[in-house]
């Protein structure tokens, strides 16, 4: 807690504020001399969140391609309604569903969330062992960045660094 900005200050107040022990004299309390700090360091942490959309911009554009590179949300039209998600020729995941067109987003361990369009572009595609529908697909990623800023400011500027010193110089001074 800072010393008062007016009224009476005793040398004992200085000892308590600045942590001095034993007998004290004012000459021990020069600014920057070891007991009275000349600067104060403050650290500010800022968190910034960014959302990236692909193919973007925003949420209204989707990818769809049945030729290489494959893009699309493919789903078996019959039980067990297996979903196959393709992005840039990579099959990201397979999972079964409770019903057709039931799951509308899939968040991958890589941080991207894949979202299917409400309506399929193709239906009844016969792949031999299954018949599938293909939905256009897009993806989005939320990235959080934490930035730490350190700032040093001068404090106790009323306290001299040498020469004549008096108790009144310590108004508002802080450890």
């Amino acid at each position, binding site marked *: 807690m800072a010393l008062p900005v007016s009224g009476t200050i005793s040398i004992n107040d200085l000892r308590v504020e600045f942590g001095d022990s034993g007998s004290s004299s004012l000459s021990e309390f020069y600014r920057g001399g070891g007991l009275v700090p000349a600067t104060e360091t403050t650290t500010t942490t800022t968190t910034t969140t960014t959302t990236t959309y692909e193919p973007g911009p925003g*949420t209204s554009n989707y990818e769809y391609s049945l030729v290489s590179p494959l893009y699309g949300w493919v789903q078996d039209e019959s039980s067990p309604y297996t979903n196959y998600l393709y992005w840039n020729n990579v099959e990201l995941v397979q999972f079964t569903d409770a019903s057709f067109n039931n*799951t509308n987003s*899939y*968040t991958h361990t890589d*941080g991207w969330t894949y979202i299917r369009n409400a309506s399929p572009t193709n239906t009844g595609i016969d792949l031999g062992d299954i018949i599938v529908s293909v939905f256009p697909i897009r993806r989005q990623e*939320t990235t*959080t960045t934490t930035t730490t800023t350190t700032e040093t400011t001068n404090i106790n500027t009323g306290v001299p660094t040498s020469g004549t010193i008096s108790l009144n110089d310590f108004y508002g001074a802080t450890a």
Partner: protein
Amino acid sequence: MIDVTYEIIALYVYPQKNNLTNVVGKVQLRTVFSRNGASSEGRLEAILDTDNVSAESFIDVDNLDIDTVAGWVIESHGGEDFLTNLKNAHDQTLQDKEREIGMVKYP
């Protein structure tokens, strides 16, 4: 307002890590977004940061509740902003399903 509920599909654990037993490392969740009687589903997967798990913060896998697990998953993907974006992604589906409420097939 969109309500969100979670259901665990699968938990994957390290049987032993940092002298702890059954440390959860990967989670698969089924997520249901609901509004006005309509719902839309999503699926969430996350690999959790287990490097800094300590005995003090550790929760036995049998004592985990769904909100704690879902919180870990959401946080690993960006926290509340991630969840807001996910809700927005399901908003159109919910709007469509809300419009379908009360319809019956004719004849």
